[in-house]
Every structure is written in C-alpha cells, then in structure tokens.
C-alpha cells in the first residue's frame, strides 16, 4: 500500500468504468431478439399429433387428475371410423387449460399415457381478462402440415383400435 493509494484507487475506479464503456452491451432487445429457452424449459402446453394428423390425446383425463392446481378440464367423446380424431375409442371433445391457475409443474406431461400434452417453449402469455386466460383445445393443438390431415378424419375400419400406441422410452 503506497502513500498515494487514496488517490490512485479513485482514478483506477474511473479507468475501469471508462474501459467498460467500450464493451458490447449485454442487453437483449427482447421483442425483436429472443433468447432460446433451455432444453427442458416448461412453457405453454402443446397438444401433439401423430404424423398422419390424428391427435395423440385420447381424453383420458389423467392430466386433469394429476394437475395440482386443478387447471385442466377435459371432456371426452366417442370416436367413430367416419369421424376419427384420435386412435382408440375416445378423444377429447373439450380440452381447456386455465393459464392463470397453471403452475407449469409438468405433472400433466408425466401423467399422459400417449405423450399428447407437452410443455412447449412459448412463455409469452398475457391476457386482458380472466376469460382469455382459458386456452381451448383449438389454441393448444399443434398445427398440421397439410389441410387433408386435419381431424376429424375418415379412416378405414379396424386400423386404429388401440388408444395407447407402442412407445419408446422417453429421451431428451
């Protein structure tokens, strides 16, 4: 410690702040520029489809049962081969998630037997009133590549008899 230290340290501080002026700002210009979310990020839910466009959700309500915040409401209806929404006997005719109640714990994802509900990467959830916080099935369902694959589909009888498909082990 030198005698001139009280002065030197003050000037050293000034020099450090001046140097930092030349650095690149760390700011991310949010609405224009978005930082990618983490791999296991739990954002807004997405209802998945199979490759042929059929919905994975079979309306079993296990997600609603697993939900600790009671945010999910599911109502099931019968599938027919004329109007088929999902494989197996039943599909979700109503599927609603109240985004104000949801705590994004991901238990619904774990409970789902068909991996139909997945917490996606969308975190931009904002509403003007409580009504619009309830996301319906149309809003949650993922889009299909071609309009021919939209549900309900007319399919040949006897193909989609099983509700729960053969599944691989989950992997990230």
């Amino acid at each position: 410690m030198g005698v001139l230290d009280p002065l030197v340290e003050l000037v050293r501080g000034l020099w450090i702040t001046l140097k930092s002026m030349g650095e690149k700002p760390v700011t991310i210009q949010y609405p224009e520029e978005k930082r990618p979310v983490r791999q296991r990020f739990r954002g807004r839910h997405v209802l998945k489809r199979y490759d042929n466009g059929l919905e994975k959700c079979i309306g079993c309500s296990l997600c609603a049962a697993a939900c600790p915040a009671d945010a999910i409401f599911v109502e099931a209806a019968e599938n027919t081969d004329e109007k088929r929404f999902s494989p197996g006997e039943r599909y979700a005719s109503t599927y609603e998630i109240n985004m104000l109640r949801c705590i994004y714990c991901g238990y619904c994802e774990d409970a789902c037997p068909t991996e139909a509900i997945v917490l996606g990467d969308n975190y931009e959830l904002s509403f003007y009133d409580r009504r619009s916080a309830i996301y319906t099935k149309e809003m949650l369902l993922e889009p299909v590549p071609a309009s021919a694959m939209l549900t309900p589909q007319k399919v040949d009888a006897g193909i989609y008899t099983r509700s729960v498909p053969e599944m691989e082990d989950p992997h990230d």
Partner: protein
Amino acid sequence: MISDWTLWLEWFIKSLVLIFALLGGFAYLTWYERRALARIQTRIGPNRAGPFGLLQPIADAIKLVFKEELTPARAYKFVFFLAPILTVVPSIIIAAVIPWGRSINVFGRVINLYLADINVGVLYFMSIAAIAVYGIVLAGWSSNSKYAMLGGLRSTAQMISYELSLGISIIPILLLSDSMRMVDIVEKQTTWWFVVIQPVGALIFWIATLAEVNRAPFDMPEAEQELTAGYHSEYSGMKFALFFMAEYQKMIVICAVMAVFFFGGYLGPGVDQFPLLGPVYMFIKIVLLLFAMIWVRATWPRLRYDRLMSFGWKVLVPLSLAIVLITATGILLVEELNRPELIWTIPAASVIVGLIPVVTIFRTLRRLYYGRA
C-alpha cells in the same frame, strides 16, 4: 436610463433563448445521463421512443404532467407550493451572467453573447446558488413529514458546508484574473487556462459543485436506498419534476461556470476570427464536464454522512484556504520580482499542498484498517 426599445427587445429575446436552451438542455441531459450510464454499465439505455430514444424526454414529460399531485394532510400549502419554484428559479437565473461568446454582428447591430455583464458576476453566481438551499429546507419543513424534514435539514447542512469551500476555491481565480466580471475572467485565460495554473483549486471547485448540486458521490439528499429520498419525499407529479429540473439545470449551469472559471469559457482555436464559435466551444466543454459528472456517478459509491461532513470541513476548507494563500504569494512574487515565469510556483506549491490531505487520509485509513499509525 434605457430608452432604446430595441435593447429591451434584445434582452427579452436573449432571455427567452436562454430559458428554452436550459429547459431543452435539462430534458436532453436526462437522456444523455441515462444513455451514458447505460453504456458504462454495458447496457443500451432508452432506445424505444424515437431514433436512439431521442423522444424519451418528451414521453417522460407527458407522463409527469399527467400524474396525480398529492399534498400531504396538514402540509403548509403555500410554502409547499413555493418550495419547488424557489428551487427552479435560481437554477435558471444563474445562467444570466454566463458569457457564451464575444459580440457578434447581426444586421449591423452588435450583439453581446451574454445576457447580463455584471461587474460582480462571481458574487451574483455565489448568492443565487445559495438561494437554492431555501427551496430545499422549505420543502422539507412544509411537507409535514419527519423524513422530509430530516432530509431537508441534512441537505441544507451539506450544501452550506460545501458552499464555503466552493466560495473560497473561487478566490484564486479572482486573484489571478483581477476581476469579478465573468467576461474578464474568460479573457484572462487566453495564454493559459486557469486549470493549468491552479489545478488543485479546480479540483476543490469540482468536488464542491458535486456536493452543491447533490450529485453522486455526495447525493445524500436523494439517497433512495437508505434514506427514503429526503426533502422531496412528499412531492409527486409536476412539483417533483420541478425539483428534478432544478437539479439538472443546476448541473448544466454549474458546468458552464466551471468552464468559464477554469477551462477558458468560450475560448478556443479560431474564436477570434469567428465569434460564433464561442458558444460551440462552450457547448463542447459543458458536455465534457457533464460527462465527467455522470462518469463519477457511475464509479464512486456514496459517502457516509459523517465522512461527507468531515471531508468538507477538515479537508476541503483548510485546503482551499491554503490554495488562496499560495496563489496570492505567487502573484506577489511575479509582481515584486517582475519575473512572469514565477507564476509556475503556484501550481507546483498547490500540488504539493494538495498531497498533504492525501497522505493524511492514507494514514487515517491505515490506522483504521491495521490499527497502527
């Protein structure tokens, strides 16, 4: 005495220009400070309203105008209303004595680039700067709030203490320039700026002005984190904006005064041929000095109140008195021995004397940290 109505018109126009320049300067100083601070902290700063965020001050002004104004119950209404005005007005009228350049010729009429050429301009500056203390103490007292009251007292004590060393640190300038007229002070700096001849005086003036306009690291009056703002705790809306305005206008004005006293005012290369360059040089100097203020705010932490007071009374006041003595002796040496080069004894002796408090502070710190003298 003054029968020429065009002179009245000239004064009127010059006052208007000055007031609008200060108001606009205040608005864009907030933008400048926020941008500069952001860059120092490796952020971007306001950039949404308009290109580079240039419309941000207008957005802020609209927001402040439309905010609700609260008056605390049992506040002294008249004084509560008067205090912000008492703070703003001095900060604007100080600018009257600041010379912005030499005279220019407009359509055959000689116009001086300053509003008032008072022969005691320095005294005017000191006295008007002192009035601002009233605004603060009255704001604190009339709010009927103990926080505002204590904050006001604290700020007043600080401002009065530092005004002392501010005033004394100007005396070397008066001795060197042999005049109290601002224009004379500037014209005396054609060979050397006074910051070269009296660097320690400039430093003391700078520190005292930081305390005088309540800037970091002496921003005790608005220490939001530890002291609930202070004298303007109870103010909101436009009245609060007036305090804010006063602070930033005082920053501009005091940087202008600093430029006049120590950095040659409007002097610069080519100002003899083109007098209009004078205001440009003033502007550049003011912007650089303002940057120094912002830079200091971004760097140094706030002083503790007792240390602030003891620094003011035990370091700055004796040091500035010593500086006065040294300057007077130097000038006497030059005059008696008739050797102009002896003027350099002033900066040399000043720097040596200026090192004494540095050494003393070093010894105090060492005693505090290691328990030995």
